[in-house]
């Protein structure tokens, strides 16, 4: 099968870090997404709660992740996400798909995308849409 289809550079599983930065404990969404991604065949590393941007970026590097899903429901997204993006850049990590989920007001979504976030998912986003977005986003980057 692998010979017949032009698979990207590797046929390993997509590796996703699901991350909870900040101090809030709202992990319902993060855990649902982590499980849905795992059920769809991806390798999921869930950081657990209360992570600093530094800890998250270290996890991304150590786990050689293809994508990162940052879950924020604390209102601190405009502080924490730019910090994560800066640290990724400083570490020379430029091939990781960055997505954000949580209570993100519309006016901030554009700003986050301008900073380099590929997708922002607000409450009510169907799980399958998120799984598909990450899968196709990672595949696109590999081509």
């Amino acid at each position: 099968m692998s010979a017949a289809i032009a698979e990207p550079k590797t046929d390993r599983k997509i590796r996703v870090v699901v991350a909870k930065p900040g101090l809030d404990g709202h992990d319902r969404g993060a855990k649902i997404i982590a499980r849905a991604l795992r059920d769809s065949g991806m390798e999921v590393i869930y950081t657990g709660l209360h992570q600093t941007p530094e800890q998250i970026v270290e996890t991304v590097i150590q786990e050689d992740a293809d994508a990162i899903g940052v879950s924020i429901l604390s209102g601190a997204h405009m502080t924490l996400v730019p910090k994560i993006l800066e640290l990724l850049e400083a570490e020379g990590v430029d091939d990781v798909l960055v997505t954000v989920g949580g209570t993100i007001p519309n006016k901030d979504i554009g700003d986050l995308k301008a900073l380099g976030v590929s997708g922002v998912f607000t409450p009510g986003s169907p799980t399958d849409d998120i799984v598909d977005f990450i899968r196709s986003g990672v595949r696109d980057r590999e081509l």
Partner: protein
Amino acid sequence: MEPTSTPKTGPEASDAVRKAAEAAESEFTTMSGKPVKARYGADDMAGDADLRIGEPGQYPFTRGPYESMYRGRNWTMRQFAGFGTVEETNQRFHYLLDHGQTGLSTAFDMPTLMGYDSDHARSLGEVGREGVAVDTIDDMEILFQGIPLGEVSTSMTINAPAAILLAFYVLVGEKQGVASEQLSGTIQTDILKEYIAQKEWCFPVEPAMRLVTDMVEYCTDHMPRWHPISISGYHIREAGATAAQELAFTLKDGFTYVERAIERGIDVDAFAPRLSFFFNAHIDFFEEIAKYRAARRIWARELKETYGARKPESMRLRFHTQTAGVSLTAQQPLNNIVRTAIEALAGVLGGTQSLHTNSFDEALALPTEEAVRVALRTQQIIAEETGVTNTPDPLGGSYFVEALTDEMEAEAYAYFSRIDELGGMVEAVRQNYPQREIGEAAFDFQRRVDDGEFTIVGVNRYVTDEEDVPLLHIDPALETKQVERLTATRAKRNSAEVESALTALKDAAAGEANLMYPILDAARVHTTEGEMIEAMQEIFGTYTETPVF
């Protein structure tokens, strides 16, 4: 996204289709997935109805904690508020009181909930975002400026550092000339549900339980009008639990606190009347009402039969209700006004003692003043226009409601047994048992929503294009302002006094003395919340969750 399939039944459906649907009873379920039958009758009521249902204000209190219920006194309208610094929140408190609110409820920001001062590196970007920042007694004093603490009852949502915030409040009362005996209100303190659901902790489970028991003991001795623990199902439900799981885990947490206080040597009738509860009001109307009624019956029975309470006040469960934040949708936010009204009505028909109604914009941000006003008006309309307050427990005796109440009770007892098999609630929490059950339920519910089995209007059906609503913006400059105030407090205080207070606190933590007293001493000399937490962490250690998903 397109609206999903058309309704399975409805006026246009043929009789045959409708009958087939009725036959497949599994299609008719509560939100928690409990099957609902085509009809309920006398056969569905378990056991001796007089004994199980009884009268309002009488054991087992199924029909309500008080004989006259809202004929005697309305529930307390208590909107949860807190954002920015203490000045902004104090202003919001006055706004709410001016609009007819009857009690206060304080939301603290994440750093305060986790025991970090506003100038801690971990607090960056989080100060005042999801609640108000309080670092020292100076902040607490401004928070309640112009609010007579002897007259208004205050609720404070804080858990791991609850003892510290209570100390701040007691000292502000002192400054206002109000003795601790006169202060009335509630502090959440329910640390077990933090490990289970809300996830704001400072210490490992055992020392955290000791701190809770210290507070119960202190309040029993000095604060007869205060509720030292609000045993909370709200966050458990928000994390994804079913109604029955919320009921079971919350009551089991409550029994655990009762056991600890009894082990401490406190008479059950001296503290049990001051325990109160906090439940969620979700969107499945009857399931919620049944949950509240079952909670009262179970609590009454267990306090009497298992814990030896003799006073009816010890057996009488009273609770605060908040409508389900998780039921709010970011899509078509005005629809949330309707959801909140229905949920609030369930809380009232279930016999709540106080109520918070969510604002329609809260799936997007903290609420604006206008949104909060609509939420408060929703309560006032229920209380003063609808007539539902005219008689206690108007649904008592309904075949369906009583049957559902019995089912809730049975399901809760099944969970109690499983938790006992694991060695009790503290051990179950350590083993991630409730966390895992809640995670399963949350995932299952999301699947039902994604598959269109459970309708959420505006999300998976009746989807339309969105128009933005105005949102509350929290000025990032407020963080700087708070950090500056904290710096000023640190500069003006006597640091030798602070050092010796912290040493005394550590000594007490290493021994067995009640920690409330050294905490009060430290608070008095302007020791910060973060300093006290760090001092206790030196002795107690910290907590790290092993995440399960």
